[in-house]
């Protein structure tokens, strides 16, 4: 239903913009891929379903002209954060908001179907049916969704110009957002160290997590790979990998919009978003700030107060 509406909206806004960024079917039925629409004939290729996990808002800062973009609730936080940080001109973006009931992690689906080639995918309310050479398998969306969907607070975009369906409210308790971080915090320092070491040891320094991150603004000038100055060694030891991830995490402090792109794209299946969520939780405790929810907010690291309510440095 909302796919039809999405196509209608795209046709309607297309004459006013250079490009509409949306999703289309990818190389197989379990994949969707972005489509940059510039002509009405392309609109038929548009798809909207739980496979549309990619955060398309990430493309906005690199667009030179006025564009329209399809966003889910979580993706809209990226736009809000861009507005806070002055990275986009809101007048140059038409936001097509999609109320979303949850996406699918293709890695989880692939695992559940034993990595067989996918022939057909269909969705019914709450489940995904996948056809492979050895038969059909029905999986509950709740079992194959990315972590972020299990605690989604913003199923309807926070900012939008048009909505493809009626707004929906979150049915997930706010405490669930940092449940995975709390679990990590329950472990001893040694256990946490061992956990992150075993995860980051798999990293190949491909930087997909960084390049797909909407808030990694340095991109080609990232100190992890600049050659002049040559800030960081190119060795692939665990220390160097951890160093890169610390840089990414710290630069995202109070800026990470928890879109999970870093984790979704990692070819080595490293839970890269965890560190950033942990820092976000600290930022929330310290500054009572949640990134990407209010365009009028100022990110805490973009400003300072002489006396911070929860930082006691002047009262030694």
């Amino acid at each position, binding site marked *: 239903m909302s796919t039809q509406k999405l196509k209608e909206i795209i046709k309607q806004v297309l004459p006013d913009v250079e490009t509409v960024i949306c999703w289309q079917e990818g*190389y197989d039925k379990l994949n969707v891929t972005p489509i940059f629409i510039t002509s009405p004939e392309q609109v038929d290729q548009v798809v909207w379903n739980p496979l549309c996990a990619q955060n398309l808002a990430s493309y906005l800062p690199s667009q030179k002209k006025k564009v329209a973009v399809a966003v889910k609730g979580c993706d809209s936080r990226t736009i809000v954060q861009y507005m806070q940080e002055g990275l986009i001109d809101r007048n140059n973006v038409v936001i097509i908001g999609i109320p979303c009931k949850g996406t699918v992690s293709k890695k989880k689906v692939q695992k559940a179907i034993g990595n067989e080639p996918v022939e057909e995918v269909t969705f019914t309310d709450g489940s995904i049916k996948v056809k492979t050479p050895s038969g059909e398998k029905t999986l509950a969306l709740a079992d194959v969704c990315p972590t972020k969907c299990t605690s989604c607070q913003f199923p309807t975009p926070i900012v939008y110009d048009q909505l493809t369906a009626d707004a929906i409210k979150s049915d997930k308790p706010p405490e669930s957002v940092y449940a995975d971080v709390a679990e990590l915090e329950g472990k001893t320092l040694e256990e946490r160290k061992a956990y992150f070491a075993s995860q980051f040891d*798999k990293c*190949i320094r491909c930087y997909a997590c960084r390049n*797909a991150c909407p808030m990694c603004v340095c991109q080609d000038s990232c100190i992890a790979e600049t050659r002049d100055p040559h800030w960081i060694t190119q060795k692939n030891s665990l220390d160097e990998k951890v160093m890169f991830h610390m840089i990414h995490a710290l630069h995202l402090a109070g800026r990470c919009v928890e879109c999970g792109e870093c984790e*979704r*794209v990692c*070819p*080595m*299946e490293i839970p890269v978003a965890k560190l950033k969520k942990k820092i976000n939780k600290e930022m929330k405790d310290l500054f009572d700030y949640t990134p990407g929810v209010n365009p009028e907010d100022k990110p805490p690291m973009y400003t300072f107060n002489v006396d911070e309510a929860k930082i006691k440095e002047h009262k030694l």
Partner: protein
Amino acid sequence: MADKGYLPKEKIKEFVEALGKDAAVYAPCLEGDTIIFRQYTADKEISLDRPANTPPKGAIYPQCETLLSFEFKKDAATPQKMDVELKANTDFPKAVVFGGRPCDAKGFTVIDRVFVNTDTADPYYKKRRENTTIITKCCNSPYAGCFCVGVGGGPASREGSDVVMTEVDGGYYLEAVTEKGKAVMSLSMIQDGSSYEAKAKQANEKATGAVRNPFPADARISPELFDSGDFWGRVVDKCVSCGACTFLCPTCYCFNITDEQAITTGERIRSWDSCMFQHFTLETSGHNPRPAKYKRFRNRVGHKFSYYPEKYDGAIACTGCGRCIRYCPVSVDISEIVGYLKDPKADPKQWAADKKDAKN
């Protein structure tokens, strides 16, 4: 020595440990949900269930290796004189790459043409390559993105392997392809394999028939379309310029060399580089001949499907392993792009940058 054998599944561990007696064995190991080629040790779990996330390339061509180490030394007698002592090591142990796929093994043959079969062979790669035996697992079926058949390979291709193994009746039928491979067949847990040969052949044929073939391997690339910036702009606009496709590719061999120095000692290291990175062609002057993403992407496709084949008798520098498709953050499909380029009806006008205008 027999060149056909059979290895029951429950003997895999024993087999790998026997191989490891006098060699470093690199095998696909399960870590969480990820399968990575690691040097095998008894605490690791080998998984042959699907192709590994990474190719085994790093076993012979490590992501990062020390080419030489250096130390500046003052001469006590003449303090104004500084000597530099250099050390280089090419004394590598014997190695085995176990459990790669045919597309992985073929990947080494692509690198060989550049690093070995030339009058300026790379001593590090060459020595490791000579010391390594490659035991490959044929695929039962293709996986997401696979297109080996489209580039002249296949799920049972022997190219680059010393031994190939095919899954049959609770075990593997082994076939030695080279003399190095024959030596492996003498290990005690390898049983007589002749009765499995026909079955293995059948399985190989079935798998080969199931792999997609996105374009005729010998069709030529349209030079007009290849030169069209509009075409590249359109197929590449979604790419985020990361290194996933190149770092996971069994054939990409570009590297960077850096000196990592701490006061008086240091190392000259070679590490993988990626033509998808903006820095790849950044020159000292600040000029960058490939500043735009599409130019970098065009290099990746051009290198594999045009420049390399021109230089090496038509050999394609892509083995169709599908990793760059499977793990691309935005599902860029190289086979789709090459398909457009090899389409006999390819027409750059169809890709005009502003289709709205082109239609008018």
